[in-house]
């Protein structure tokens, strides 16, 4: 039985006798250490959210966001090795803009997700490159249909009703399974997601953190935009109070 570090893990161009490519597995491990990210397809749109530690009081609030717009109607959230994720987002933006330049149409979320996944897959094929250590969630609207995709470092891409990744993904997964997503709007979902993200933080709650959110929904006229800050903060505070209240046993 070949475990890690037995010579089959030196390069993405090597399989081990069990048929695994360790470098890709290690890249996936890197994403599991990142901040938790969540994507939820609700009744009227999709909400993307992520949480991150804020290391220093000197950092400006709201800087270094992990949520990105790719086109007017498609957005993304990343976790894992953040510079890797940002590089993939740059490529996604280029793909989208070249596509609309050539075909005269905005790129569909399905097509963009496929292109980005192929790009990530490319980096698992060569000895001179390393796989991206980042998981990407893409959400977008095309013709009144909302689509949510998650891409991992192996280049695999799946479509989801809801997905989680990062440190707190298991906790959030169980919380999401309790919701009936078809019945809630993205607006309602903001509160639920704040609850999940706060609950899933294993470190002491005293550690500073920030939550980023973006949505594409009927409310935003089909455009991917940041969730309004005051509203998000209001829901965060409400979630925090509700959790503290529950823990006190009321």
């Amino acid at each position, binding site marked *: 039985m070949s475990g890690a570090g037995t010579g089959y893990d030196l390069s993405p161009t090597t399989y081990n006798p069990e048929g695994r490519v360790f470098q890709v597995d290690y890249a996936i491990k890197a994403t599991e250490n990142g901040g938790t990210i969540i994507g939820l397809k609700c009744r009227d749109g999709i909400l993307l959210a992520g949480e991150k530690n804020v290391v220093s009081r000197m950092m400006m609030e709201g800087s270094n966001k992990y949520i990105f717009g790719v086109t007017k109607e498609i957005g993304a959230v990343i976790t894992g090795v953040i510079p890797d994720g940002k590089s993939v987002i740059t490529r996604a933006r280029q793909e989208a803009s070249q596509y609309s330049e*050539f*075909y*005269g*149409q905005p790129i*569909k979320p*399905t*097509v963009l997700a*496929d292109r980005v996944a192929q790009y990530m897959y490319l980096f698992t094929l060569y000895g001179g490159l390393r796989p991206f250590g980042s998981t990407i969630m893409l959400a977008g609207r095309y*013709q009144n249909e909302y689509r949510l995709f998650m891409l991992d470092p192996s280049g695999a891409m799946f479509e989801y009703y809801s997905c989680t990744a990062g440190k707190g993904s298991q906790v959030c997964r169980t919380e999401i399974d309790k919701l009936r997503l078809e019945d809630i709007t993205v607006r309602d979902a903001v509160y639920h997601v704040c609850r999940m993200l706060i609950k899933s933080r294993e470190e002491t709650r005293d550690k500073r953190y920030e939550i980023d959110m973006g949505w594409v929904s009927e409310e935003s006229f089909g455009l991917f935009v940041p969730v309004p800050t005051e509203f998000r903060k209001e829901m965060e505070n409400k979630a925090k109070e509700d959790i503290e209240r529950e823990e006190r046993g009321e």
Partner: protein
Amino acid sequence: MAAIGVSDNISELSGMGVELTGTSIMAVTFNGGVVVGADSRTTSGTYIASRISDKLEPIHSRIFCLRSGVSSHTQTLAKYVRHYLSQYAVNENSEYPEVGVAARLFQVMNYSNKDFLRASIIVAGWDPVQGPQVYEIPLGGSMVQVPFAISGSGSGYIYGYCDANWKPNMSENEAVDFVKNALSLAMSRDGSSGGISRYAVVRPDGVTRNYVSQNELPFRG
């Protein structure tokens, strides 16, 4: 210009045996699809290279293009567009790709190669997203969507007739009659257009092709 077979001078070109489509072509939207029509004469100077040619070029199952200019240029453009569009349709899982995409592909190629091409194209068809559409891509490589379009050497003689007789939301029969009459008038006055007039009706449920034989043409010069 150094490229073989390309010249600003029409008579020089036709003297070299390059086929030109002196032509009458048109496409019309109606409430339920588009009608495309063309004459059937291909000339090389004054020699009629073909008197029964088919200028209605299918690009995809519900998209046609009508070609005028230098035959080899327009045929090659159509081949490229058909190739790219079929890949696009497969990648996007769409049985009926958007007409605007086909038009855009013609435009991008026509514009980037404008120094080497003489091609004026009408793209017409139906797609489930936007319904019936007609686009004109003239010589310079611009593109504009229009409710109906006429082009080719014969089109100059029928602008008045078309402007006077076109109306929006025609039925299929009205649109077909409009095309038959307009093409017939063009063919009766333009020496480079003639033969039979072919037309096709593109609807969501399919395409029907037909032609009007010479002795059935409404106006015969």
